[in-house]
């Protein structure tokens, strides 16, 4: 297992290097610089700003300087927010985004797995069609539509829940978590239904039933383990996606998270912030993919055997 993990981590290094290099040169070649403004900026001001951020150096030199700083864990100062470093901005808002992602994942897994299992128990009946149709709507409905809808119903009309903020008013985390988690819940529902349907026809399930085990024990103890394999494989990339894709939800609900920086940085040509968030999300995606592989290997004895090796 250790060999498997270290192998995967080593593979990540060239991937990250390519991401960093491509992003760096792409953003520097995009038209419009970080200091272009509506009002003409005097030449000496541009000169001072360029010197402050080393933009007066050739791009390759900036790239090497950036790599050097990065090796020391320094993402550099933000161009848009002069008094803040990218490290401070990323790590200062990461907690909020991670918390939002976690709650959304909780919503997605609980609703998704329940709906998927319920549907798989009686395939091609109303018990299957209803949750799966809802799931299809969930997949199709973008968060920028679902969020405002939930706000209108539960926040404005019924006045049950706060419509914005994060940790200010009790309950203000519920609507964002549901909005962000909904489409993932829908995916998970379809995945767990498919997984369960496949497993339920396996010999070992028939054996369990033949032993006279009650149905709920058969499902929970035997079927779920195999049936949820596709879901587990999905969880890693999904969580990384939740973190990186929280921009819309953070904007709708006025949440001080990382996702907002990610998109704004590109519009503002905040070079260091674009680099910082891209690298951060790349690392997140790589790590969560690895985590989900480890989890899948741990749950599935067949995979464990394949990746096996002496050390596990």
């Amino acid at each position, binding site marked *: 297992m250790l060999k498997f993990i270290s192998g995967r981590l080593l593979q990540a290094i060239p991937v990250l290097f390519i991401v960093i290099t491509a992003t760096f040169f792409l953003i520097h070649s*995009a*038209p*419009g610089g*970080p200091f*272009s*403004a509506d*009002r*003409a*900026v*005097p030449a*000496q*001001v541009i*000169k*001072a700003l360029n010197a*402050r951020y080393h933009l007066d150096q050739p791009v390759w030199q900036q790239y090497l300087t950036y790599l050097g700083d990065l090796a020391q864990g320094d993402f550099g*100062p933000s161009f848009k*927010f*002069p*008094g*803040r470093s990218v490290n401070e901005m990323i790590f200062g*808002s990461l907690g909020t985004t991670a918390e939002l992602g976690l709650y959304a994942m*909780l*919503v997605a*897994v*609980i609703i998704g*797995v329940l709906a998927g299992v319920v549907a798989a128990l009686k395939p091609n009946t109303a018990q299957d069609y209803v949750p799966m149709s809802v799931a299809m709507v969930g997949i199709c409905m973008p968060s920028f539509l679902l969020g*405002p809808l939930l*706000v*209108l119903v539960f*926040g*404005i*009309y019924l*006045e*049950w*829940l*706060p*419509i*914005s*903020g*994060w940790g200010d*008013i*009790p*309950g*203000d*985390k*519920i609507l964002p978590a549901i909005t962000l988690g909904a489409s993932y819940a829908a995916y998970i529902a379809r995945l767990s239904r498919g997984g369960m349907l496949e497993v339920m026809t396996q010999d070992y399930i028939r054996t369990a039933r033949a032993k006279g085990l009650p149905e709920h024990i058969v499902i*929970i103890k035997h079927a*779920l*383990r195999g049936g949820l394999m596709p879901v587990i494989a999905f969880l890693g990339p999904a969580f990384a996606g939740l973190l990186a894709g929280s921009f819309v939800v953070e*904007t*709708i*609900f*006025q949440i*001080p*998270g990382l996702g*907002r*920086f990610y998109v704004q940085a590109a*519009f*503002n*040509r905040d070079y260091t912030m674009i680099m910082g968030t891209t690298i951060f999300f790349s690392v997140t995606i790589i790590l969560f993919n690895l985590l989900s592989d480890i989890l899948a290997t741990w749950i599935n004895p067949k995979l464990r055997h394949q990746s096996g090796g002496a050390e596990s």
Partner: protein
Amino acid sequence: MMFKTQHGLLCLLLLILTACGSGESNVSKGNREGILHWGNAAEPQELDPHVVTGVPEHNIIMALIEGLVSKNPTTLEPIPAVAESWSVSEDGRVYTFNIRSTARWSNGDPLTAEDFAWSWRRALLPELGNQYAYMYYPIVNAEAFATGELQDFSQVGVKVISPLSLQVTLTHPTPFFLQLLDHYSMFPVHRATIEKFGQPGEANTLWTRAGNFVGNGPFMLEQWDLNKVVKVKKNPQYWDASTVRLNGIYFYPTENVTTEERMFRAEQLHYTYDVPIEKIAVYQREKPQQIKISPYLGTYFYRFNTRLKHLSDVRVRKALAMSIDRKSLVENVLKAGQLPAYTITPPNTLGYTASSQLRYDPAAARTLLAEAGYKDGEGFPVTEILYNTHEQHRKVAVAIQQMWKKELNINVRIHNQDWKVYLDSESSGNFQISRASWIGDYVDPNSFLDMWLTGGGNNRTGWSNKTFDYLIQNVAPSAKTKKQRYAAFQEAESILTDELPIIPIYTYVSKHLVHPSVKGLSSNILDTLYFKYMYLEPESEPRSAIKP
């Protein structure tokens, strides 16, 4: 697994239960505690008055720092602030400010003339990169110091006469100089605090963080949570603290105008930065007392690239300008009370309303186009309108595209670009016709006219007119009376609206949603906020949300 699922469900249930019955709204709590909840559009870049450039930063800084002179919140006439009085020499070049002895920094330090001289020197340091350094340029040698040509600040026209007396010498008489002093780029900063956290010319130190910030305004910085809220509280050291009735203001970075409107409806905000276009009619119909629309010192216009062959012909430019039905545009497309514009300077800019020979006359426009060699639009090159990506700009461009097709039978393409790309295209002359706007830095026609000087950084049209330059650079500054000065501006503006390197389209309005409990909020054409006069008076009527 069963146990884990039950556990998860229980957690979710608990989460939901704790949520319901969320209690008091921000507005009702704020009214009780004297806290104003303010929609402020964006996370402030910084709170250093010599570094920032945006309106959200301006709003917060107006609460935290005060300059020598303030303005009447309605008329915008200069009124005493840190300076309790001032005198102007007969030739209009030397201003002597008497600083009030009760002026204090928020940490209790006395505020002196030396503070201003030091702060202004800092604001002009080339390495600081202050984008508003040009606000100081009327002062003798300020430009030379800001561009690094002059190293010795004692040669700049700023002189400390005594701890409470500051003398400022201008190159030319500048009637709007007092107006500039209320711009944040001319505000004082606390020397000891800045030096504690870095060099004066450093723009990225920690002096503006809560706990470090020292200001001299009616409020002081209490808390600054990134992307969440900036909280300010009443400053007991402020010289006019008895006038300040609010205990604090919470500024929220409400980037999304739709979210902001929903927050207002749910009573989480007293005031919004903007109003979504589609909601204007709803509020005007159902809650007219909550929507505030006022004239704004800004003009929406199109720039011509006069370096291009067909657009270098003034007859073509006139034909295009004369075939836009501005009245229809503001009434049917924009719908927020904007005014059709036929001049670049908005009407009643401190008593100046320019007249214009420009009018809506499609028949005359067709004749002009025919004279230019494009009868019935035949042979007219396909021309492109460039705009930065935004729904409203698209709507305006589509409407104008249709008007030109209908009236002149010419084909126009519309093309949008991301903001920074658009800026790059415009400043490098890589456009044919581009959308633009200009918001006055101060209330004076000069703010709208000096940008069209030959080779000016904001001109970008390639247009040049020597008479125009002479009027703006020589005649207006040396005018003895306001009447003479405005006459020079009118003459210059007539040249501009006759040659039309730009097409004025409409004059902006400011739009806000304001809770009825907010009092003392005056409107002015700069949409500048003077928080010290504001207060909250809870209304008796119960909450009633608008149901769209």
